[in-house]
């Protein structure tokens, strides 16, 4: 009996490791509430955005990052994002941009299902953790100045 119980506990923890997405709701083109229930940290968010292996954002976007060379030119500048979009609109675009533009090239940062041929080492993982996404959002919300370079 105890054995079966222990086995069950193991199975459940395995299940918890195979990451499951926190549920979220899309309403009026936005995800209004934080994925973690916590606010994000804009300084950490900025670090994620400029990290080439982590956020990957500057592969496509440019923005107010004077220290960063070689910013991409496949997407709009991130400068002024906070004055163009609400927090919830930014969250939807981070979670899964295909919900806004089916043909977008912007990767889905919080999605696991419906992706094909994912490399073994990235399977069942999202591009960013929920709190990392909140950090990025907090940073983008703070980018109010369109003209900033």
């Amino acid at each position, binding site marked *: 009996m105890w054995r079966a119980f222990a086995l069950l506990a193991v199975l459940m923890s395995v299940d918890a490791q195979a990451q499951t997405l926190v549920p979220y709701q899309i309403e009026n083109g936005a995800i209004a509430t934080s994925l973690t229930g916590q606010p994000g940290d804009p300084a950490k968010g900025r670090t994620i955005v400029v990290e080439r292996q982590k956020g990957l954002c500057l592969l496509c976007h440019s923005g107010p990052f004077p220290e960063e060379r070689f910013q991409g030119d496949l997407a709009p500048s991130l400068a002024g994002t906070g004055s163009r979009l609400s927090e919830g609109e930014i969250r939807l675009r981070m979670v899964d941009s295909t919900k806004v533009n089916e043909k977008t090239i912007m990767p889905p940062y919080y999605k696991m299902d419906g992706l094909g041929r*994912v490399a073994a080492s990235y399977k069942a993982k999202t591009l960013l953790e929920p709190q990392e996404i909140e950090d990025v959002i907090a940073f983008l919300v703070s980018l109010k100045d369109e003209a900033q370079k």
Partner: protein
Amino acid sequence: MNRLVALWLVCAALPAAAQDARKSGFAFMGPDTQAMQTDDLANPGMLFVLEGDALWKAPVGASQKSCASCHGDAPQTMKGVAARYPDFDEATQAPIDLAGRIIQCRAERQGAAPPQREGHELLALTSYVAHQSRDLAIAPAQDARLASARAQGAALYSTRMGQLNFSCAQCHDDNAGGHLGAAPIPQAHPTGYPLYRLEWQALGSLQRRFRNCLSGMRAEPISAGSADAIALELFLMDRATGMKLETPAVRP
């Protein structure tokens, strides 16, 4: 009057330019890298071609036959071959790429150990054979039995893959000419392979290039010589029909 003539010339030239917007990866490179490709003495790929020339003539395996024993003088007999491949292989009743044909000749007709994909020997022989088609227009094999593999390649090319959810077409059709970070995105024409890539510090095949792009997409690799890899190559060669082969090209 002169103005009018000039205007007429420009207008006459326009439709031709608009018809073919295709550009080799060569056009996306800086002048230094271009010069390295066009000067045979500076092009590191030419060392492999020279090596391939020696391998072509060397007897190997149980048969002690060389490639030349069957095919003679490569500049004549191999001219245009790479421009046609991949082709349909009667023996296996499946599409075969140029490297695959060389492996087959080595193993079955020369009785030698089959050369490894991406290995030095195979790259040297493939670049030697492909070099015999340098400056010739790509002219894909017209064999109806290749049609389904071509369609399979076209489908792969436009399917989103990997954790980043990109398709090849999104970068190479929709965003070619743009910059992914520092890298200019070329149109993915298979005109120069095998080619010397400065980032690799080595010669590599088209199928190695697929592996690079797929790993950037965080997608499962497509192994060299597999049906999927040959299908993609068939599709890209077809898409590049009429463009000139450059083997051995140089890329950044």
